[in-house]
């Protein structure tokens, strides 16, 4: 019988803005929590996977690498991987799944640590030197002050406005839904302090049309850990395991402005190729929302709605609420719970499938969830099942 891969432990450090705690210690906090959750000890870990690896030129973006963890935790690692060149953040978990299915590793730590708020407070140590020059892919955008991904995603979103009639009132539901759910997430207390109203959203300042301030996630400091284990190692686990039922990824050139549709429209259909589950079986979706438009591309790309219909699905917010037909970003997403950069979506999917989400737990004994990451030309998705 082919091996299966399971998520067997999840952990998350304190999530905050300008946390004084060193990002390596935040990472160790999250590791310890995930180990305790799974009932594992460090000597049982034999692999470490991350995205994007340590970012030496911009440590705030990724201050901790797999080498750091292997070193300070004394892990005897058989396989490790920390790289930017993979199809978006959650692909690190997908690759860990392949490693345990292949029998290379038995229990793998996957992690993503961010220190972008703390890094702003300590730019000399964590931020890039002032870049007067540009090279690589950024040379095709930054000379025109399309400096931020906000401007890149805005151009995809603007097309939905122009071509399909998406309104700001519709788009607002992503951030409003996120704020409501974040208020029930203890880990989001430093990020969301009050519910976002439609009035407040509509009067917010624009960043890059149609994206306003509330459509963009906020720098935060945190580490999230996901432990992936082989199916034949579950007798070592004390927590409820969640199966990684399918993975998919897509990169259609790393040139944001040359691709017609974001990679979610390729990775979405692919997720259903290696599973009998279908969109109708999904109890909750945790969609990457670094910018509010991106969940709309995932709704469409994964086939929950037709292309060009995503904004109609979220209108009014009732369908995506915790008691709606497709609860979205139940921990608040990145808009509500901070820029955890992808791994928060897997963490929350597992938490919901275990029925462990406390006040924000969705009803109906959920068994199947989708978690996604990425935007623009890169995308990765996980189908998670408690079966």
């Amino acid at each position, binding site marked *: 019988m082919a091996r299966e891969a399971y998520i067997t432990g999840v952990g998350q450090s304190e999530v905050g803005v300008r946390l004084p705690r060193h990002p390596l210690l935040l990472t160790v906090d999250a590791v310890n929590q995930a180990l305790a959750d799974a009932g594992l000890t460090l000597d049982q870990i034999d692999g470490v996977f991350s995205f994007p690896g340590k970012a030496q030129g911009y440590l705030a973006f990724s201050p901790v690498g797999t080498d750091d963890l292997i070193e300070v935790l004394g892990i005897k690692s058989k396989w490790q991987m920390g790289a930017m060149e993979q199809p978006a953040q959650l692909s690190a978990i997908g690759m860990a799944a392949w490693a345990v299915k292949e029998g290379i590793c038995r229990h793998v730590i996957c992690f993503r640590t961010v220190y972008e708020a703390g890094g702003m407070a300590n730019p000399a140590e964590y931020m890039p030197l002032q870049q007067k020059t540009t090279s690589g892919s*950024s040379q095709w955008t930054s000379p025109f002050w399309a400096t931020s991904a906000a401007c890149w995603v805005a151009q995809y979103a603007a097309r939905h406005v122009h071509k399909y009639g998406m309104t700001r009132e519709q788009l607002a539901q992503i951030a409003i839904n996120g704020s409501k759910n974040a208020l029930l997430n203890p880990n989001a207390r430093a990020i969301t302090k009050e519910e976002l109203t439609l009035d407040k959203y509509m009067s917010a300042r624009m960043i890059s049309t149609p994206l306003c301030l509330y459509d963009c996630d906020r720098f935060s400091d945190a580490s999230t850990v996901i432990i992936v284990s082989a199916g034949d190692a579950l007798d070592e686990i004390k927590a409820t395991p969640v199966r990684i039922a399918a993975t998919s990824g897509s990169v259609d050139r790393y040139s944001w*402005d040359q691709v017609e549709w974001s990679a979610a429209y390729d990775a979405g259909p692919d997720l259903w190729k290696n599973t009998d589950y279908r969109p109708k079986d999904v109890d909750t979706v945790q969609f990457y929302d670094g910018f509010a438009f991106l969940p709309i591309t995932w709704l469409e790309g994964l086939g929950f709605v037709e292309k060009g219909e995503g904004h109609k699905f979220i209108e009014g917010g009732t369908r995506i609420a915790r008691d709606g037909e497709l609860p979205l970003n139940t921990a608040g997403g990145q808009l509500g719970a901070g820029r955890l950069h992808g791994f928060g979506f897997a963490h929350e999917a597992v938490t919901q499938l275990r029925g462990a989400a406390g006040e924000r737990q969705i009803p109906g004994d959920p068994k199947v969830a989708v978690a996604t990451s990425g935007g623009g030309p890169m995308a990765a998705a996980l189908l998670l099942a408690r079966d």
Partner: protein
Amino acid sequence: MSSAPPSSPPPRPVPKLDAENRAFWTGGAEGHLNIVHCGDCGQYTHPPRILCRHCQSENVAPKAVAGTGVIDTMTVNHQPWAPGLEVPFVIARVALDGVPGVFLTTNIVNSPVDQVNFGDKVRVTFEQQGDIFYPLFEKAN
């Protein structure tokens, strides 16, 4: 972070010239918008590469294209990403005439932002800064 705004706008980030991108960023000196063209299959490759991304031929060279196009999508940017950057301004993705499948991210200049729309016909206008000729676009009519 905030300091007194400088009296002149901040310089645009300067592309680091190399074998692949030099003709694109300096072509404006002759008034040319250069896009890499394949002598074998006739298709264009952008971002510029030293081989054709369609047929992998090395028989490629920069070719001056018409320099006109259509706004495929656009955003009005309100965020000053650098100190002193004047906002709002238009960031657009322009589909180049005669260069199928190639888009340029650029700014649409010389029009108020509320006069710029999807589908507008535009033409290149170069802005020189040192050795670099930035291909900006303005409305063609």
